[in-house]
């Protein structure tokens, strides 16, 4: 039910819905990505109307997601990362992130019965990933370099496959470890069975004042935000309220339809584990301050310094505090 989103509506530019005068906001999300759940919550609980807009979901392919946002295929993305926004800035597209959507939800997993305890034990062995230029892989690569001095790209024997196929590869023994985002890493833990050998969120937070680079963020073009200030504020408010709703249930909401269908966990067991995982991490964040903006900038600078995907950071910070942008 939730995965709908009318194709016609998606094709049209920003506009107003027919029944009432509320502006339509098209959210783009990956199928099965937990970052989309709050949007579904917004729709289900009527938070959109409450905050003066009507939410639509546009499902996008991970590879084409950034392009889709840039060409105006959606108004707000819930799955963009800082690196991509920096790239967009470098190409002259003024898109910004304005709120984190998911924490650093990615991990490195090995099989449970394997002897490997740290990423260093895996040097020289087969490691599965889903693309050297993917956000997940580059983030982990940079952290491993900073924390362990490991060059992910050369020290490991890399094997590429789609993100969803990685748990299978680990289980079948094809690779010794995988780096993947959640809840797929969790699936590997349950199915292989496996265990985490490196948890970036915690590892990075330990040495960085509790901050770690968000997996994904809410993003939009600066122009859209400035032209629709009230709607933009409504979107953020609705998002925060949705996240609060989820957290209020300790993420147990995930076990209800239609959220359960959205998350599409491999099994109930996996869903349970994911709920526990989220409640523990937590998955969604509930504040975003100038400090976070700076941390993100520093992180991106570190990426640029290591020549990972970007060569330099954008002139202006790619993250904005909505309250400051839209007084």
């Amino acid at each position, binding site marked *: 039910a939730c995965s709908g989103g009318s*194709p016609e509506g998606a094709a049209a530019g920003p506009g107003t819905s027919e029944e009432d005068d509320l502006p339509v906001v098209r959210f783009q999300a990956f199928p099965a990505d937990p970052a989309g759940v709050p949007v579904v919550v917004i729709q289900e609980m009527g938070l959109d109307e409450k905050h003066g807009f009507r939410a639509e979901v*546009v499902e996008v392919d991970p590879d*084409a997601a950034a392009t889709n946002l840039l060409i105006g*295929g959606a108004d707000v993305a819930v799955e963009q990362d800082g690196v991509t926004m920096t790239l967009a800035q470098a190409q002259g597209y003024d898109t910004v992130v304005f709120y984190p959507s998911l924490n650093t939800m990615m991990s490195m997993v090995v099989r449970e019965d394997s002897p490997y305890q740290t990423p260093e034990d895996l040097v020289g062995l087969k490691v599965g990933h889903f693309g050297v230029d993917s956000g997940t892989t580059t983030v982990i690569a940079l952290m491993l370099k900073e924390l362990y001095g490991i060059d992910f790209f050369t020290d490991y024997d890399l094997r590429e496959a789609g993100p969803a196929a990685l*748990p299978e590869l680990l289980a079948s023994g094809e690779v010794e470890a995988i780096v993947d985002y959640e809840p797929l890493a969790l699936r590997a833990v349950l199915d292989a069975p496996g265990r985490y050998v490196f948890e970036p969120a915690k590892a990075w937070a330990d040495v960085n004042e509790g901050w770690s680079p968000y997996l994904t963020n809410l993003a939009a073009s600066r122009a859209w935000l400035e032209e629709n200030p009230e709607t933009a504020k409504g979107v953020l408010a609705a998002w925060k309220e949705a996240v609060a709703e989820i957290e209020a249930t300790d993420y147990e909401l995930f076990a209800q339809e239609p959220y359960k269908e959205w998350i599409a966990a491999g099994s109930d067991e996996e869903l349970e584990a994911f709920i526990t995982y989220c409640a523990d991490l937590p998955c969604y964040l509930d504040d975003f301050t100038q400090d976070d903006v700076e941390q993100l900038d520093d992180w991106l600078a570190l990426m640029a310094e290591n020549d990972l995907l970007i060569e330099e950071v954008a002139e202006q910070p790619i993250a904005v505090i909505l309250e400051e942008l839209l007084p």
Partner: protein
Amino acid sequence: MTSPAAVLEAGPRPRWWGAGRHPTTAVAGALGLAAFAVLWWWGSERTRFIPPIGETLAAYPAFLASGIWGDIGASAVRVVLALATAVALGAVAAWVIVRGGFWARVVSRYVDLALGLPSVLVALLALMVFKRSEAGVFLVVAVACFPFVAISLRQGLAAMGHQLADMASVYRFGTVRSVRHVLLPHLVPYAMSSVRNEYAHAWRVVVLAEIFAVNSGVGHRFTQAFDRFLIDELVLWLITFIVLLLGSEYLVLRPLEKFALRWRGDRS
């Protein structure tokens, strides 16, 4: 492999290409399907990710009832329209090329170019031009399919010989009659092979194009399953594709081909 040696040495009675309809061909066809089923069964025994064939088939009715028809219909319309366009374009291109001369060369450059365009690239470019719209999907499929139609029909046209064309011009057939009674019947085998291929190709490309461009159709649904790695659902979709193609093959293409080529006598 049976062929050339068999032609020369075997030649059992009745003739090795048989006469009329053989019940054996139906059996062989069933065996072919069975071979696929066995392969699947074997795969499901040996790997953990291929679901058992029985379970999948048992789940299929429920899957059919789960509202997939709208998506199949949406994609089918795209496929058929785009394919029709591709065939028309391909036929025109082949025609121009075979006629020779300046424009033949120009057009054959474009056919070659289109032949070498990765569908992914076209899909991405179409996304930029058409944003998220039907037109993009349609265009991607048509562009992907037309050059193959063109080279196949070009081969057919080149193989035509001038004898019948000469006859047609002496008896003043005119364009319409020539095309209808001389050209088209001659092209049937070539057109059949390219339609068969391009129909399948179109389904493959529509899956790709729908990933990027629209929120409907089997490509979209298939990708949802694919991205979530819901193998069971993935396999159900696979069966759907297979049923779609087998259906059009055995219910439409083959009867059509048999009818169109019945003049050739016992060589089906």
